[in-house]
C-alpha cells in the first residue's frame, strides 16, 4: 500500500479503492458463513426448516387431496373403455346427473360406421336404508346385460356376471360399514326396492356418494326412468374410422345430444368439480394458509437469527463485507432451509399419503407434485430471507464500536 500514489484533481482512483474481490471467493466465503451460522444457531435453523417443511406438507396435502377428489370424480370415466360419450345437452359432469336422452341416440350410435359397440347407461341418485333407520345417498349406475360394458369395474369380490341375478347390486367396499355392514349376500332396501349385494368394487366413490352398480332394467326401476329414456350412451370405436370423424358423424346423427370424446368428458367432469363444485376455492385457501403460515414461521425464525446476530453482521460489515454479501449469506441460508425442509416435507407427505390411503380419504401425491412444491417453498424461504435482509441492511458497521 505504501506505493500508492496520491490523487490530485482527476487522477485515477487508487487500487485499494477500486479493487474487487474475485466473485468465486466472495460467494464461497458467504456460502461457508451461511452454513456455519446456520449450524451455530441450531434452534432458529431447525424452526426455519420445519417452517418450510410445514408449508410443503400443508400445500402438498392440499394438492394431494384435491387430486384425489378429481380422480374420484373421473374414476368411472377412467375405468370405462368408451371412446365417445353421448350425453344430454348441457351435461356438466358424469356425476352431475341431469336431463335424459331418448333411446333414439343409442340406435343412431349403434349403426354409425366405425362404432364397435354402443351401450346405454342410466344413472341417478337414490338412497340405501341403513339398519339404524337412516339412509345413505348412492349413485346408481344401470348397465345392460349381458355385455356389461358400463361396469361394474374394479371388482374385488364377486364376479361381474353376478349382476345378472335378479335385483343384484355391487357396492363399494369402502362404504360397506357406512351402509350397514354389508357383505356378499346382504339384502338392503335401495330406492324402495329390495336389492342383494352380489359383488364389491373398490374406489368408485364421489364426494356426493358411492357408486352402486345394478342391471340396467333394475336400475331404471329404482331411478324411475322410462324405458325409452337413458342417461348417457357409451361408444367404443372399432378402429376403422378416426375418433373425430366418428364424433362429427354422431353430432350429425344425434343433434339433440352432446358428443364428447373421453378426454373432453374427463376434462368437463374435472372442471365441474374444480370450478362449479368449488374445489379450486378450497385449494386456493389451503395454498394461502400453507404458504402464509410457512412464510411467517420461516421469516420469524430468520429474523430471530438475524436479531440475535446483529453484532456479528455489524462486524462482518466493519471488516469489509457489503450489504450484498449479507444478502447472499441469508439467501444461501434460505436455500439451505428450503432444500432441507422440502426433503423432510416430501418424506412426511409420502408417509401421510401411505398412512391415509383409502378410497374415501386419500392423497394423490404425484412425483411432479413433490418436485413442483420445491420452487414454491423456495420462494417462501427467499421471501422470508429478504425480510431478514431488510434488517441487516440497516445494521451500521459503526454499531460494533458502541
Amino acid at each position, binding site marked *: 500500500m505504501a506505493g500508492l500514489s496520491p490523487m490530485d484533481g482527476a487522477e485515477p482512483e487508487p487500487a485499494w*479503492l477500486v479493487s474487487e474481490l474475485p466473485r468465486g471467493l466472495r460467494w464461497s*466465503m458467504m456460502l461457508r458463513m451461511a452454513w456455519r451460522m446456520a449450524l451455530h444457531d441450531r434452534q432458529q435453523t431447525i424452526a426455519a426448516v420445519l417452517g418450510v417443511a410445514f408449508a410443503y406438507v400443508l400445500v402438498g396435502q392440499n394438492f394431494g387431496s384435491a387430486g384425489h377428489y378429481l380422480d374420484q370424480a373421473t374414476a368411472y370415466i377412467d375405468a370405462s373403455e368408451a371412446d365417445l360419450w353421448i350425453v344430454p345437452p348441457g351435461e356438466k359432469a358424469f356425476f352431475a346427473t341431469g336431463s335424459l336422452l331418448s333411446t333414439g341416440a343409442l340406435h343412431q350410435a349403434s349403426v354409425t360406421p366405425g362404432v364397435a359397440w354402443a351401450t346405454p347407461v342410466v344413472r341417478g341418485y337414490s338412497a340405501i336404508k341403513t339398519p339404524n333407520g337412516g339412509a345413505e345417498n348412492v349413485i346408481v349406475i344401470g348397465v345392460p346385460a349381458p355385455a356389461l360394458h358400463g361396469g361394474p369395474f374394479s371388482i374385488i369380490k364377486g364376479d361381474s356376471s353376478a349382476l345378472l341375478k335378479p335385483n343384484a347390486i355391487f357396492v363399494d367396499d369402502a362404504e360397506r360399514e357406512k351402509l350397514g355392514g354389508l357383505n356378499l349376500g346382504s339384502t338392503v332396501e335401495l330406492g324402495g326396492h329390495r336389492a342383494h349385494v352380489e359383488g364389491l368394487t373398490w374406489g368408485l366413490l364421489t364426494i356426493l356418494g358411492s357408486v352402486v352398480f345394478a342391471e340396467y332394467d333394475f336400475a331404471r326401476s329404482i331411478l324411475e326412468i322410462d324405458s325409452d329414456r337413458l342417461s348417457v350412451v357409451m361408444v367404443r370405436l372399432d378402429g376403422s374410422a378416426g375418433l373425430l370423424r366418428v364424433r362429427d358423424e354422431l353430432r350429425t346423427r344425434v343433434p339433440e345430444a352432446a358428443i364428447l370424446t373421453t378426454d373432453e368428458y374427463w376434462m368437463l367432469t374435472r372442471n365441474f368439480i374444480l370450478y362449479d363444485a368449488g374445489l379450486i376455492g378450497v385449494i386456493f385457501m389451503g395454498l394461502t394458509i400453507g404458504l402464509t403460515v410457512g412464510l411467517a414461521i420461516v421469516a420469524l425464525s430468520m429474523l430471530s437469527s438475524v436479531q440475535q446476530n446483529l453484532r456479528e453482521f455489524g462486524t462482518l460489515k466493519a471488516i469489509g463485507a457489503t450489504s450484498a454479501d449479507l444478502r447472499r449469506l441469508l439467501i444461501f441460508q434460505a436455500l439451505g432451509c428450503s432444500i432441507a425442509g422440502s426433503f423432510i416435507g416430501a418424506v412426511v407427505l409420502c408417509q401421510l399419503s401411505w398412512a391415509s390411503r383409502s378410497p374415501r380419504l386419500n392423497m394423490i401425491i404425484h412425483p411432479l407434485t413433490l418436485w413442483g412444491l420445491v420452487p414454491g417453498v423456495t420462494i417462501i424461504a427467499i421471501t422470508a430471507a429478504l425480510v431478514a435482509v431488510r434488517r441487516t441492511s440497516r445494521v451500521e458497521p459503526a454499531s460494533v464500536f458502541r
Partner: protein
Amino acid sequence: MKAVVETSRVTKAYGEGDQVVSVLNGISFYALRGEFVMLVGPSGSGKTTFLSILGCVLKPSSGSVKLFDYEVGNLPESRLPAIRRNLIGFIFQGSNLIASLTAEENIVLQLNMRGVGGGEARREAAALLDRVGLTKQKGQKPSELSGGQRQRVAIARAVAGHPPLICADEPTASLDQDSGISVTRLLKEIAVERNHTVIAVTHDPRIFQFADRIENLENGRIIRSAEASMSINIRHFMESK
C-alpha cells in the same frame, strides 16, 4: 514521512435543527506509517466516534479525511467497504469474533475478505496464530477461549493480509491487568514487525507505555498531545487533566 491517515477539521453531529448534538468539533490529526497512537479522554469526548471515522465505518459531517493522501471523507457509503477490506484492520472492545467460526476460520475469513483464498489463507492464518501463541487453539471457537486469547485472535485477524492501518477500540477493556498489558505488548510487537500504523482508543493508563504518541480528546477536540518517547510521565499527564 507521509501520513497513512490524516484528518483536517473533522466534525460529526447527530440530529437536526434544535436537536443537533455535536460530537466532534473540528479535529485535525495524522498518523504516520508504523506509528502507535493512542486516543485518550473522558467518556463522551468523541474518541470512538473519531476512531469510527478514521476506520471508514462512519462518515464525518464535515472536514477532510485522507488515507494515503486520498480524500475518503466524502465518498458514498457504498465505497467504504472496499477501503475497510483493503486498508484497515479492526480490534474491538469485546473481540467481536464470529461465534460460529473457529479461531483459524475467523482469520481466514478476514484474509478471504482481502482477496487471499484457499491454502494460502490457511497457511497465513496458521502463521498468525503461531505468532500470537495460539497454535493449539486454532480449532476452538471463541466461546472456548479466554478473554485474552480472544483478543489475541482478534489481533491476528486485524493484521491478517497486512492492512496498513489498525483501529483498536478499547482493546484491553474486558481484560485483567496482566492480560491487558500482554495483549497490548503483542499488538505493539506485531505492529513494529509488520510496520502497521495502530490507532487505539483506550481508558487504560497501564498500556500508555506502548504508545508512540497520545492524543487527548475532550468535548470533541484534541486538546493535548504527548510524545511517549519524550519520557513524559503519561499517568501524570492524564491525572493533570
